[in-house]
């Protein structure tokens, strides 16, 4: 572990020589060991204590302790402070120690992962932490990359390798990395062992998409770029193995550089509490000053004469100085208004709530075997105040599984499954899926429920056959057949994989391909098609086509693409079919399915020859090659015959629409921030019912320049205002808009709007001069979707809302690209149970299903907030009631800082007599059962509006406390002034007075906690009655003969309890005090229930409202779909793969017919891929396909 802690000067540049540990050690680069823990056994105590005393509260109590050691002002024994202080420090230390233990454990787990390192010519298993810069390590398929590596060689041709960067940037499509040509030949260990190239590159930084360096090898220089790097956190996919040279390790890796220090999050209640504590300090000082002045006056008037009986202390020479001392004495006495136990109790309660979250069975995911986990134990009550949720899409809302769900073939729709109720059934409730056993090559994991489609295939319906033939031919999937019949598809996008797999199961099995052929098993018959051309996919074309020649020599073009594009390119004869298909498409789109339209076209031989010629010319053109190609493609993809449409379900996580609907009802605004494409994001918006067709309008902002974006935002706002103006509540909007306040009229607009904004537009919208406009517009919308956003932008959006809306934000995500927003938001939630754990590690709460969010917020969060608020109110109340008695007594004891109570009572009041009942309430209280908080999402509102504990509530508590303290002092005062005991002896001695006041206080605060407790479990009973019993037990013990005889000067109250509490007058006093203190509270609460009941009160009392709300609830759940024409097209695809296939570069030599290998445009595919990358990297507004930006 010691290795991890080494501190080094900042690097200028990094040099790493392969296979030369000695050389590399000179630079003392960080090893691959990561350390997130804070302490070790030796440093724990000093460091932890140091940290704890940085807390203002602890230092304050230390200061008090020192004050108490000064005899002149020590109004209380030192133990009244040291006992709670030590208790607090111990509890916190234990908690910190456990936390750190778990951090050690997780560090160890990561550090001890195995990887294969090439050491002195042999591959050896090494733990991750022992990997050094300059080592060559071998990665295998599906392994995590251990450090930032320079890719040297791989199992794939040309040193290619595929990685999934979801951990890093959240993108789920695979990316290609390529080794530089000179190293890509270093395929075997012997060659690698001899490799001694030296890399000189930039120092560690957090830019995920940039890398610049040079490889020096054999007297040659080779430039290196990000294209050659494998970053820690990526996963190797579809690549059997690869070798890499470690460039950055451990804390220097881009992943760790990006993770940054965890900011300590505080809840708004924390901040409020700190403010209030400061106020209370101010109040304390005021009290101290008043009493000190009182003391000075008293000493001047009375005390100076009373010196006969009590001379002033030697140090005291004037009434003024006496007053000064008495100020400090009173500070000591009155410090209990801010009891040290406040902070501990708050922590304990939060810890309890965290455990309830961890223990919640309803947040446990059976499938992934992951329980929910509260990773931060200090934020719970903030869960009850969330107003904005920022959600990632992939992996959070969706499972990133594409499912071939429905299709429309020649005007007939397949794939609808209805259960008894006529609902679309959930997976578990469906009948048996259809049986594909006729097809030995079928993928067993593929499920389909509509048997009629299989019928159609079996009957030999030509359209259906053509449909699946298209699916099996028109794609860029690579197949791999390790054993006979065991087919694996390497799909570049999951959509495509789903389509090809569907075709495979319905008997059109894509078997293998070469650059020039595609072999398909059609209904068991192997047919090889000649692949003439792939008209590649891109974002503008939104379609892809293949041109193939079948075994009969006929040339046919197969095309699949977005409906909006494709439907316009059909042959006019398709008119009728087009209408039915459009209906189907609308239906699919309404269900939130991702649709593609399929079409074909027969080409004449001559025409094709001529076209191919033109295409060749276009592809060889020097300038505007792309435009020329596009127009050539356009030309051929025309007058096509419609075949049908596919509908792919981007499988949502369970219960996502319901959760979103419920959270929306709870007045929580949900923004989706995704790195995915606009179409996909919008599509998911619809499928999870964030966007509906009922919405007045969905604004889409895609501007590329500042002006465009501003214009689009302005238009959106105008539209919204226009509509609400027509609704007509005629006051001037302009006027209000000009006011600086952000709670603008836009908040109150009528109609439902949604905003979809693209990453490159967002970059402009987030600029300082436009962010307010953007925020205003966005907040006026019911739903906001930001697509193609970078991790940094995600954080910026969250920050923006945090900054201006003063609302509690929650970010939920699953990937490393969400880490920044998870850390920025008030509350970060990570989806656990996935492969990556970056998000979870950065998060405050983690669980494995998005749907658990509703329970986390509406049940746990709500309760936590309620409990915390009740706890705080009561806590401040009880301490004011307790402490202020001293203040009143000051007026009757010459302001001499005499306490009203026995010092033991003062010590124990907060930590024994009154701590547990309020803790029990803070941990267990429930106002309404958990089902109700789900049924009435509106119950969540008080938290958002911060109603239960705010400055006003605080003052009410304080007022109640002071009221109680007044009665607590003056009622006994009134009684004791005159009374005598029933045996004629004096009643009004100091000790009896102390016992009477203390006993009434304990009883009053116990009754009050009884009133505040809404949910009396056995534990509450035990604690409340127990506290009272313990009070009396301790009272009698402290006043017992035994203790007195041992320590006569410490236990002066001997015999007091039995003498005082035997007096009826004392009990009359206690009863009177209790009733007078409690009666107004009961009356007030009762009247409030009658006159101004809260929703929670209503829910508790009546079931009448329940039915109404339920109806409304159901209404909301109904799928609202109208016939609006909307494209459901979405496809997570990257351009350039068609070219790659046609070049044959990515095919194993073994599977290639070498003879038919042509070198035409041999290297352009990688150029295309590269160009796309650099485009997006150089300008975020370039808006290509990579939202990756540091």
């Amino acid at each position: 572990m010691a290795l991890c802690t080494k501190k080094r000067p900042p690097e200028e540049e990094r040099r790493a020589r392969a296979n030369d540990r000695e050389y590399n050690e000179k630079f003392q680069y960080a090893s691959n060991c990561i350390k997130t823990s804070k302490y070790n056994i030796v440093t724990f105590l000093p460091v932890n204590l140091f940290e704890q005393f940085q807390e203002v509260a602890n230092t304050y109590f230390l200061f008090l302790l020192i004050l108490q050691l000064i005899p002149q002002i020590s109004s209380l024994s030192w133990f009244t402070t040291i006992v709670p202080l030590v208790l607090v420090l111990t509890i916190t230390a234990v908690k910190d120690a456990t936390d750190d233990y778990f951090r050690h454990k997780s560090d160890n787990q990561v550090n001890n992962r195995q990887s294969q390192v090439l050491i002195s010519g042999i591959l050896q298993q090494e733990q991750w932490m022992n990997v050094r810069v300059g080592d060559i390590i071998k990665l295998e398929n599906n392994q995590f990359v251990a450090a930032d590596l320079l890719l040297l060689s791989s199992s794939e041709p040309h040193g290619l390798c595929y990685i999934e960067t979801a951990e890093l940037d959240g993108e789920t499509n695979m990316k290609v990395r390529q080794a530089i040509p000179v190293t890509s030949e270093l395929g075997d260990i012997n060659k690698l062992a001899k490799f001694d190239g030296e890399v000189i590159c930039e120092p560690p930084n957090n830019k995920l998409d940039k890398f610049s360096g040079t490889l020096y090898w054999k007297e040659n220089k080779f430039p290196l770029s990000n294209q050659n790097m494998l970053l820690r956190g990526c996963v190797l996919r579809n690549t059997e193995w690869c070798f890499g040279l470690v460039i950055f390790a451990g804390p220097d890796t881009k992943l760790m550089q990006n993770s940054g220090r965890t900011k300590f999050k505080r809840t708004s209640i924390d901040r409020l509490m700190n403010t209030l504590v400061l106020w209370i300090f101010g109040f304390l000082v005021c009290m101290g000053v008043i009493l000190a002045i009182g003391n000075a006056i008293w000493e001047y008037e009375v005390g100076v004469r009373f010196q006969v009986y009590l001379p002033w202390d030697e140090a005291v020479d004037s009434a003024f100085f006496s007053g000064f001392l008495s100020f400090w004495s009173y500070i000591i006495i009155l410090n209990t208004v801010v009891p040290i136990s406040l902070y501990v109790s708050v922590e304990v309660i939060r810890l309890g709530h965290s455990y309830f979250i961890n223990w919640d069975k309803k947040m446990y995911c059976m499938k992934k075997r992951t329980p929910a986990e509260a990773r931060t134990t200090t934020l719970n009550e903030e869960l009850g105040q969330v107003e904005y949720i920022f959600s990632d899409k992939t992996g959070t809302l969706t499972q990133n599984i594409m499912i071939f769900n429905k299709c429309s073939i020649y005007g007939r729709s397949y794939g609808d499954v209805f259960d008894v109720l006529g609902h679309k059934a959930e997976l578990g409730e469906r009948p048996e899926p259809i049986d594909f056993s006729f097809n030995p090559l079928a993928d067993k994991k593929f499920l389909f429920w509509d048997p009629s489609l299989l019928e159609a295939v079996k009957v030999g319906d030509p359209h259906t056959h053509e449909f699946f033939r298209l699916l099996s031919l028109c794609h860029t999937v690579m197949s791999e057949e390790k054993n006979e019949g065991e087919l694996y598809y390497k799909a570049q996008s999951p959509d495509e994989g789903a389509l090809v797999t569907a075709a495979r199961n319905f008997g059109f099995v894509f078997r293998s391909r070469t650059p020039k052929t595609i072999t398909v098993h059609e209904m068991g018959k192997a047919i090889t098609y000649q692949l003439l051309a792939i008209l590649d996919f891109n974002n503008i074309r939104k379609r892809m086509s293949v041109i193939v020649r079948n075994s009969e020599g006929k040339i046919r073009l197969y095309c699949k693409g977005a409906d909006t594009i494709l439907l316009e390119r059909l042959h006019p004869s398709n008119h009728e079919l087009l209408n039915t298909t459009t209906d189907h498409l609308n239906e699919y789109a309404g269900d939130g399915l991702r649709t593609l339209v399929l079409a074909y076209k027969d080409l004449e031989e001559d025409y094709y020859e001529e076209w191919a010629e033109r295409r060749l010319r276009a592809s060889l053109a020097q300038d505007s090659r792309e435009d020329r190609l596009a127009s050539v493609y356009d030309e051929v993809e025309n007058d096509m015959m419609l075949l049908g449409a596919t509908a792919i379900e981007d499988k949502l996580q369970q219960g996502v629409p319901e959760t979103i609907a419920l959270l929306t009802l709870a007045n929580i605004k949900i923004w989706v921030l995704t790195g995915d494409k606009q179409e996909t994001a919008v599509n998911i918006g619809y499928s999870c019912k964030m966007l509906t067709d009922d919405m007045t309008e969905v604004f889409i902002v895609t501007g590329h320049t500042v002006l465009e974006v501003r214009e689009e935002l302005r238009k959106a706002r105008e539209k919204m205002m226009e509509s609400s103006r027509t609704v007509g509540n005629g006051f001037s909007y302009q006027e209000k808009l000009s006011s600086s306040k952000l709670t603008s009229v836009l908040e109150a607009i009528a109609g439902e709007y949604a905003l979809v904004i693209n990453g490159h537009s967002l970059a402009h919208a987030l600029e300082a001069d436009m962010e307010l406009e953007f925020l205003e517009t966005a907040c006026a919308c019911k739903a906001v979707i930001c697509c193609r956003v970078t991790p940094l932008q995600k954080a910026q959006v969250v920050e923006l809302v945090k900054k201006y809306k003063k609302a509690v934000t929650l970010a939920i995500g699953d990937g490393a690209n969400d880490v920044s927003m998870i850390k920025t938001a008030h509350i970060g939630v990570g989806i656990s149970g996935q492969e990556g754990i970056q998000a979870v590690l950065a998060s405050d709460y983690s669980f494995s299903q998005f749907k658990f969010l509703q329970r986390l917020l509406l049940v746990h969060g709500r309760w936590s907030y309620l409990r915390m608020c009740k706890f705080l109110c009561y806590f401040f109340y009880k301490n004011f009631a307790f402490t202020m008695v001293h203040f009143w007594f000051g007026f009757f004891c010459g302001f001499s800082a005499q306490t009203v109570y026995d010092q033991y009572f003062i010590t124990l009041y907060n930590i024994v007599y009154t701590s547990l009942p309020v803790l029990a309430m803070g941990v267990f209280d429930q106002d309404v059962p958990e089902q109700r908080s789900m049924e009435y999402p509106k119950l969540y509102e008080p938290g958002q509006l911060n109603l239960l504990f705010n400055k006003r509530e605080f003052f009410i508590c304080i007022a109640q406390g002071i009221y109680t303290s007044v009665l607590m002092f003056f009622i006994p005062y009134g009684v004791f002034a005159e009374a005598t005991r029933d045996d004629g002896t004096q009643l009004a001695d100091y000790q009896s007075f102390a016992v009477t006041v203390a006993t009434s206080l304990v009883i009053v605060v116990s009754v009050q906690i009884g009133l505040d407790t809404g949910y009396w479990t056995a534990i509450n009973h035990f604690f409340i009655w127990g506290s009272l019993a313990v009070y009396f037990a301790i009272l009698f013990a402290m006043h017992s003969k035994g203790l007195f005889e041992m320590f006569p000067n410490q236990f002066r109250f001997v015999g007091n309890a039995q003498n005082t509490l035997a007096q009826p007058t004392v009990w009359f006093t206690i009863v009177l005090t209790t009733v007078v203190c409690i009666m107004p509270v009961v009356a007030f609460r009762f009247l409030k229930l009658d006159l101004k009941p809260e929703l929670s009160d209503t829910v508790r009392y009546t079931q009448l409202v329940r039915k109404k709300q339920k109806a409304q609830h159901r209404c909301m759940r109904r799928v609202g779909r109208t016939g609006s024409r909307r494209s459901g097209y979405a496809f997570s695809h990257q351009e350039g793969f068609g070219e790659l296939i046609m070049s044959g570069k990515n095919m194993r030599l073994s599977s290639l017919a070498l003879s038919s290998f042509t070198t035409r445009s041999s290297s352009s595919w990688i150029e295309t891929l590269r160009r796309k990358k650099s485009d997006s990297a150089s300008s975020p507004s370039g808006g290509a396909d990579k939202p990756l930006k540091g």
Partner: protein
Amino acid sequence: MERNSNDVRGLLSRMPDNTAFKQQRLPAWRSHLTAWAVLPGFFTTGAFFLGMGILLILSAKSVKEIEITYTSMCSNCAKLRENASNFYKECTCSVPFFIPEKMPGNVYMYYKLHNFYQNLRRYTISRNNRQLLGEDITNVENCAPFQRDSNGIPIAPCGAIANSMFNDTILLSYYPHSSTRINVPLLSSGITWWTDKHIKFQNPRSNNLPSAFTGTTKPPYWRKPVYQLDPENPENNGFLNNDFIVWMRVAALPTFKKLYRRIHRTGPFANGLPAGNYSFDIAYNFPVTVFKGEKGVVLSTVTWSGGSNLFLGIAYLTTGAVMWLAAFSMTAVHLKMKKRNIVSES
């Protein structure tokens, strides 16, 4: 198989327990402030308070009490005591008074001090219980500023409380006729708590009290050492002197009365003090005018609830009345709201 069972265990170990506690489903009573609980509660508590109030007032009224402040009546003595040099000069003062009504039963005699702060912080802690237990007679820790005399000899009993002990002697005389004077017999026993007398205060173990206190000196304001406090009753000396014990139990408030004597119910006083003329004969030793204080004597009877205490009765009565008032208005509000709710529902 092995793996399977491991899996099951793993599954179970991560799955939260389905216990009522962990799932927050503990059986519990949900408290409600329903009208059915609150309104009758208010009415009954109110009734109880009204009843108790009347009872307390009646019993307080039944207490006979006479209070005589004698600082001004004995102004000569008061003046004399203002000068410390007259410390050893005797000064007596007779205060005649009249008891209009018979004081039946036990009658208690108190001295009452006004403006005497026995509750000052430094005053209350200026004592040493270990010394008072007779264990370590020279232990004068905590007793500042009266620990030792100028010669360094420890004071017994030490401390400000003991030093300032009330040392007037008050005798009560009854004049059945203008010429006859009967000394009312007074008891100094039974005026302390049993625990004080038997636990908190002990004389040093010795056959001879004076020798037990050798090595110590009397408090500076005392005329006699602690073992000579009661010349009449040798048992009532040392730390076990009743007046001393009473004084040492400091008062909570600056105006207080402490029990001084009980009327011995013998002879003409068997049924209490008959109405008539009385006088207090006071040996005025305790200076109070220096700090603007006053002294008084109180004669009082007691009932089951102690001495005269109108405050409690009035407070009970008021509280009861307010509760009934509140209960009535709450009922009114509740009925009105209920009606409105019914209307709005229909």
